Structures are given as structure tokens and as C-alpha cells.
């Protein structure tokens, strides 16, 4: 492990934490343009976070310590996840200790703490949000794992950087198995990040909300951390997508430190395109009824399994 690897490692986490609000800002801007609205500033999410951090936190009288710990745990796990995903370079010192299964476990841990914190105060909305989040999670989590497993079958590894390295060195174009899982992955990404067909981040309508219902009791810095963590999660998911399906531009082993110079702008461009793409999807689709969400995710899960079966059948 050279110094440059450690720098890449730290840079990935710091860049993710710093850029995640901007990604959301960009997504909101694109959405506004597509919907013929005047776009808010790209920096609005930052100002929002800053405002929240400055405020005095109000905590419900019957909240337990779990309620106060959860935002830090959720934010911390998302930050660590950014370090596991090879968004800039593949020579990461954390590679050996945390593979893709551990990454999904990390997301599951964040979800668990979030839902438990939502149930902690004991409001109707909190428990409802927790229940719905788990309903999304129990299908999205296995779907994500199955998506990753197709790629790990191809590259004989469950470590994301190794997968990226392997896929980046291959020919351009997706293998049939990966094509199925790419579709599945987009569905999972939308569901896991509370985007439009599954959840609407812009409303607080009790009939539909999932993520917002869980953080209703949070205020000030705790809310800021929860929101920031959600932005980081979106960032991370998009980067997982890059690692599996668009691994080009990442600093691989044989390119060396110079790769980082290319990798950072490459990542920025990829993120900008992905954000715009998400905005298009969100603008074109309508919110699903809550009861239909399992079907949506069931499709994702089946597609992912199908991807794996196709891969096994074709023996590529």
C-alpha cells in the first residue's frame, strides 16, 4: 500500500461527503428545468444543511439514547460506504476488509438504525415509515446483492474494486447477464433512495411518504445528518452503478497515480450525466401507490436473479 493509495482512499470519502449535496442540487435543478420551473441554486442543499446545523436540537421527551446515536451511525456508515466503492481509484487499502457483501451489510445496518430510531419516539408516522422502509428494504437489499453477484461471477471476486478493475479491462459493452442486472439496479436505485416512482422526496403526504416519515421527529443537527446521509446514499448508489456498469475512467492498478488526475473529472462528468438521467426518469414517471411498491421491487429482484441465471446458462 503506497501513500497514493491512502490518499485516494481518504479523498474518496471526503469527496463523496463534500459533493453529495451538490449532486442532489444538480438533480433538483435538472428536474426543475425539465418541468419548466425556475431552478433553485445548486448550493441550496449546502445552505439548508448549514442552517440546520446552527439550530438548537429539540428531542422528544421519551426519546431513548438510540434516537440520538442513530444519525451519527447512519451518516458514518454512509461515509464508510463511500470509501468501499471505487469511485475514483481501485487501489483502495480497505479493499481486503470490506467487500460488496459487507457493503450491502453496511447499508442494511444504516437502514436498521434508521428504522429503529423512527420507532423510538412512538408516533404513528414514525412506525409507519419504518414499516414501509423495511418493506422496501427486504426486496431491494437482496436485489442489489444479486446484481452485484452477476458481476462478481464474471470477475471471480466479491470485492468491488477488483470487479471494477476486471470489467474496465474487458471489452466495451455489457455481457447479457449484466444487461439484466443493469435494469434491476436502476429500479433498486430509485427505490432505495426514495426517488419518484417509489417515494416522493418533495412531499409530506402521509399516504405516500416513506423516508420523510421516518425523520419527522428529527430536528437541527440530527436532521441535517440524516438528510446528508440520504444524499450520500444517493451518491454511493450511483457510484456502485458506475463501478459495475461504467467502470471507465477510474484509476486502475496499471495506470497509477496519474489516473487520479483523469478520474476526478471523469467522475464529475459521469455524475452530472447520471443526475440528469435520474431527473428525466423522475419527470417521466408517476408515483406508485404504496401497495404496488413490492411489485416494482419484486420485478427488480426477479430481473437480477434472471441476470444471474442467464450468466450461468451462457457460461460467459
Amino acid at each position: 500500500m503506497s501513500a497514493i493509495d491512502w490518499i485516494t482512499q481518504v479523498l474518496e470519502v471526503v469527496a463523496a461527503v463534500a459533493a453529495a449535496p451538490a449532486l442532489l442540487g444538480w438533480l433538483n435543478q435538472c428536474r426543475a428545468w425539465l418541468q419548466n420551473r425556475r431552478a433553485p441554486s445548486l448550493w441550496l442543499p449546502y445552505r439548508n444543511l448549514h442552517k440546520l446545523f446552527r439550530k438548537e436540537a429539540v428531542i422528544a421527551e421519551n426519546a431513548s439514547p438510540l434516537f440520538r446515536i442513530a444519525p451519527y451511525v447512519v451518516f458514518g456508515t454512509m461515509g464508510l460506504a463511500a470509501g468501499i466503492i471505487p469511485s475514483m481509484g481501485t487501489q483502495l487499502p480497505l479493499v481486503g476488509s470490506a467487500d460488496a457483501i459487507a457493503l450491502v451489510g453496511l447499508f442494511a445496518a444504516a437502514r436498521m438504525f434508521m428504522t429503529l430510531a423512527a420507532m423510538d419516539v412512538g408516533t404513528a408516522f414514525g412506525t409507519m415509515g419504518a414499516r414501509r422502509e423495511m418493506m422496501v428494504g427486504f426486496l431491494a437489499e437482496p436485489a442489489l446483492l444479486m446484481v452485484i453477484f452477476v458481476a462478481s461471477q464474471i470477475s471471480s471476486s466479491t470485492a468491488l474494486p477488483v470487479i471494477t478493475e476486471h470489467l474496465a479491462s474487458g471489452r466495451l459493452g455489457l455481457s447479457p447477464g449484466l444487461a439484466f442486472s443493469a435494469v434491476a439496479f436502476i429500479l433498486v436505485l430509485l427505490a432505495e433512495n426514495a426517488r419518484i416512482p417509489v417515494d416522493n422526496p418533495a412531499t409530506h403526504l402521509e399516504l405516500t411518504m416513506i423516508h420523510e416519515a421516518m425523520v419527522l421527529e428529527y430536528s437541527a443537527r440530527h436532521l441535517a445528518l440524516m438528510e446528508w446521509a440520504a444524499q450520500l446514499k444517493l451518491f454511493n448508489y450511483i457510484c456502485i452503478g458506475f463501478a459495475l456498469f461504467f467502470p471507465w475512467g477510474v484509476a486502475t492498478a496499471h495506470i497509477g497515480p496519474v489516473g487520479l488526475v483523469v478520474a476526478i473529472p471523469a467522475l464529475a462528468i459521469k455524475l452530472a450525466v447520471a443526475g440528469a438521467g435520474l431527473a428525466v426518469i423522475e419527470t417521466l414517471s408517476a408515483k406508485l401507490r404504496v401497495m404496488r411498491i413490492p411489485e416494482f421491487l419484486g420485478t427488480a429482484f426477479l430481473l437480477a436473479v434472471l441476470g444471474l441465471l442467464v450468466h450461468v446458462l451462457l457460461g460467459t
Partner: protein
Amino acid sequence: MLLVGCVALLLSWTAIGFAGLVRPRSVLLTGRVLFPLGALLGLALAALAGASLLGGGVERLILPIGLPNLPMHLRLDPLSSIFLLLLGASSFGISLFAGGYFRVGEGTAPGLLCLQYHLFLASMGLVLIANDAYSFLVAWEVMALSSYFLVTTQHRIPEIRRAGLIYLVMAHVGALCLLLCFGVLQGGSWLFTFHAMRAAHLSLGWATAAFGLALVGFGAKAGLVPLHIWLPEAHPAAPSPVSALMSGVMLKTAVYGMLRVGLDLLGRPVWWWGLAPLVLGLFTIIYGVLFAAVQTDMKRLLAYSSVENVGIVFTGIGLTIIFAGSGLKVLAALALLATLYHCLNHAFMKSLLFLGTGAVLHATKERNLGRLGGLIHRMPWVAWLTLIGVLAIAGLPPLNGFVSEWLMLQAFLFTGRLPHAFVNLLIPMGMALVVLGTALAGYVMVKFYGVIFLGQPREASLAHAHDCGWLERIGLSWLALGCVALGLFPLQVIRALGSVTHQLVGAVVPQASSAWWLLAPVPGRSVSYGPLVFLMATLAVVLMTVLAVRLAYHQRVRRGPAWDCGAGGLTARMQDTAEGFGQPIRNLFQPFFEIERELPEPADLAPRYRIVVRERIWRLLYAPLVGAVEGLANAAARIQRGRISVYLLYSFVTLLVLLAVALLR
């Protein structure tokens, strides 16, 4: 020498049990002296088993006890050792907890309970070291009977007697299959030592029959669907330490038996035998976890969760047999390792959770999730220790549940090309089901923990709930510590398990990395997992977040009433109940359940909503079965006239028939 030590410890357990009869009503004697003493013996047993495991040797002993010419054969090998270790280590925590738990006035007197409890422990130990069918089955029956008496501790309640009866019947159906299985295994030599069974050469048909009988027999004890029906009845009925022992340890004796017969006594298995445990195991995972998600009784929920975990273990056994039968030794070792690791994990996690429910039950007298809530404020010790168990069983890194899940997924993932096309397709689907089961387990555990410990108390009486005593705290802490240690030091555990995989499948899972903290079990592929680094990195990032927020901003906090969207008038009734939390699962997987609903009319002044979820299996499988048995019994009753002359006639006719047969020969 280790084996002699083990026998001495088992005898001491029995002696402690009988000592309880000296003053059967004294809680002080049993709770403060005998149970802790039994716990220490458990620890000693774990130490002996650990030494034997690390040594990797085999010891034999013949005790001249029993019928003439049928001495008792005992044997301590790595496979027995790992399960003895599991028994000793988890019983240490459970016995300590039991010392604080059992009180006077709960059915059976404490002294008698002490006897039953320690006989149960000793018989489980004997099952694990028995080396002939006689002693195995005797120990097996003592285990079933002693646990039956423990289940029916509160025998004055009719439901509990019924639960006990179901348990007893299922235990005996299983035992009958085992009897037949050993009958087949001796292969015409009429020698019932395991040594003779290993040497016996069975034809493929007979070997398959033996394997099938073992699967049914041990499956009934382990709770493999559809033989699991006693679990959700017996576990809520039993006192919590007994539930913990039954679920954490006794189910594992069945796993031990399955491994012993399938991989040791039968020699090298045929690969397609593995399909049965694999498919049944996968079905059991999904079935168990779905039913766990819709339960409203916290101990029934855990019982179904045990069914799920048994499914995971049997899936692992199935994989092991498929790989071992196909000659893929290293992969078989990996699958076996995942199986054994999961057994160890489950012993700690599930005991911890059952004991947690026991503490809640004692503090609140309530098993129904709909009447609990908010206990994290009243019972912080129980709540926080249970949280560890909950996170572990949901398979979250860096706790222990994740390690076995990880190993299992690696075994699935790197199956490579098996020579059988349809198995190649079955494996990814199996993997999908395992992953789905784990995610659903997370759902179940959020429900379990959230409804019991978080939110507002749903009943006014919960305000008087008290935390558990110091013996109980030590017991819970020990088990929680086990969960953490098994999660953080997998490499050390796996090294100790090497002798078991070597014994059963002839290979050791290699270690592809030189780092002592990195788990890298697949050679030639870059897969690894380092829980210690993982934990450290997580802690570092979380602490840095806390520090950054504190340094950059203020830390002002004000306590106020819950906001609840400003609506006001929040009551505890507005939270999700256990039924409510399970609703998505109930709706999605409706065909699995038999649901009875009682919905209120629009104009009801006192609306009542009631929902009961049952298993279809009772009506589809067991009701016809019971009917058939009753019909047979009635038919048999027709020839039972109760008059001596008729019976004499029967004897006479029998004699004539036998004479005729003899003459014709």
C-alpha cells in the same frame, strides 16, 4: 483423558440435578448455588472440548454400563468436540440466567426443575459423545423426555399441556425414524457401534433409505418444514431459559446427528442426496421467516425465526453433501464451515434473544407484543444487550451472523461448474432465497425490537417494569460477548474448525491471506473480509462525525413533547401494533397463510379488529394424518372385544397359522 473429563462433567451435571431434590422448594439453593455451579461446569466442558478440537485427536472409551454384552461406547472426535463446545459455552450463559430466573410458584418446584434441567444438559452431552446406536438413542430419549417435562413446567395451563403433547409426539416420530435408520445402517452385521456402521457396505438403495430416515428423524428434532410444528408451540410454553437451551443447543444436536450420519457413518455421500436438505432447507428459510414476520407473540416469533435458521443450516448441509459427493473437497469444506459457523452463531444469538424475552416476561408478565413497548427506558440492560443479538441475527457486519452468511454466500458464489446442469441453475436460485431470507430476517428483527423496546409503553402497567437481576445480566452479557467475539475473530474460529472439516470432508478451508485479521477462504479468488478493520473504520468515521459536529457547531439540546406533525393528542394506541407491522408481509405472501379476519362494521360503536394467522399445514397435512391414525385405531379397536374367550381364540388361530407356515417351509 479429555473424554474421561467430559464424562465426569456430564456425571457432575447429573449429580447437581439430584442435589436440587434435597430441598426442592429452596430458591436459594438452586438459584444461587446449583445453577451457577452447573454454569461453571459448562464452561469447563467448553474448555475441554476446545482443547480436543485444537488437538484434533480421537479418543474412545467403553463403559461397562447397560445390558450385558452391550457396553456403552463413547468417542470424542472433532465433530463431537465442536458441538460440545457449543453446548458448554452457551449453557454457561443460560444457566447463569436460569439461576436468577426460576422462582417458586411457577408450576414445577425449583428443585425438580433443577434436576430436569441438568439431566437435559447431561443427555445432550451424551448424545454428542455416544459411539453406538444404543447409547445414542437412550441419550436421545432422555433428552426428549427431560425437555418435555421442562416445557410443561406450568402444567396447570391446558394450552401448555397440549404444546407438550405435540412436542412429545413429534419427538417420538423422529426417534422412530432414527431407530429404523440405525437398523438400516448396521447393514446386516447386527453390530450397533458406529465403528461397525462405518465399515458396513450398504447398497445404494439402502444407503439412500438410511439417509432419508435420518433426514426425517433429525429434521423433526431440528424443525425442518413440515416437521417444525412443535417448535412454535413448545417454545412459548417453556420457561425462557429452557426455550433458549432448546432452540440454541438442542436443535444443534439434530444438526450434529445429520452430519454424523450423512457425512461420517455413510461414508462418502452421493451428491444427489444433498438436494433434499438443500431444497427443504431453502423452503424452511422462507417459510419460517414469513411466519415470524406475522406473529404477535414474542416467543412464537423467535420460534419461527429458529425454524428459519434451521433452514439455513440444512441448506448448508445440502450444499456440503452436493459438493462432497461431486468430489469438490475444498468447496465442501467451505459449505460445511458456513454450516458449523452458523450453528455456533445461532446458539449464542438465539439464546440471547430468548433470555431477553424471558427478562421482559418476568418484568411485565406479558408475551403479547401488542401490550409491550418503550421498555428501553425501564430495562436498559436487557434492551441494549438484546440489541446486539438483534443486529447479529439480522446478519449485520461486523457481528457474527454476518460471518456465516458471508461464508455461505461464498460457497454458493464460487460453486463453479458442477457436472449436473440443473443443479447449476438451482444454485443461483438457492442463493437468491438465502439472501431474501436474510433480508426478511432484518424485517422480523426490526419488528421484534421496535415493538418491545422502543416507542411508548402500550399499557400503563409497563411503567412498573424493572430491569433484570445481576445473575441474569452476567448471563446475557456472556452471550452478547459471544456474538461479538464470533463476529470479530472469525479466522481463529475457522482455524479451530479445520479439524472438523478435515474429519468429515477431507479438506481444510485454506487461508489465502497472510494477515491474521483477514478472512480469505477461497484460494485463487480475491475475496476477503476483515471484521476488525471494518469495525475500526466504522467507529473512526462515526466518531469523526461526532467530533466534527461538536467542534464546528454547538451541542444545544432541548427536550420537548414529541412533534408528531404538530397534530397533538398522540397516544400509545397510534403506534403500529405487531399485526400492523406485519401487514405488508401478510398481504404480499397471502397464499402462505390461513388468515381469519374479524373486521368492524362501519357503524360499530365499539369497533374491534381481530386477525388470526394460522399455518395451512395443519389443515392440509396434519388433520388428514391425525384422521387416518384415528381411523386405524378405531379399526384396531374392533377386534379388541374385551372378552377373554375372544383373545384365547386369537391366540389359537395365530398358533395354527404359525404351525401351517412352519409345515409349509
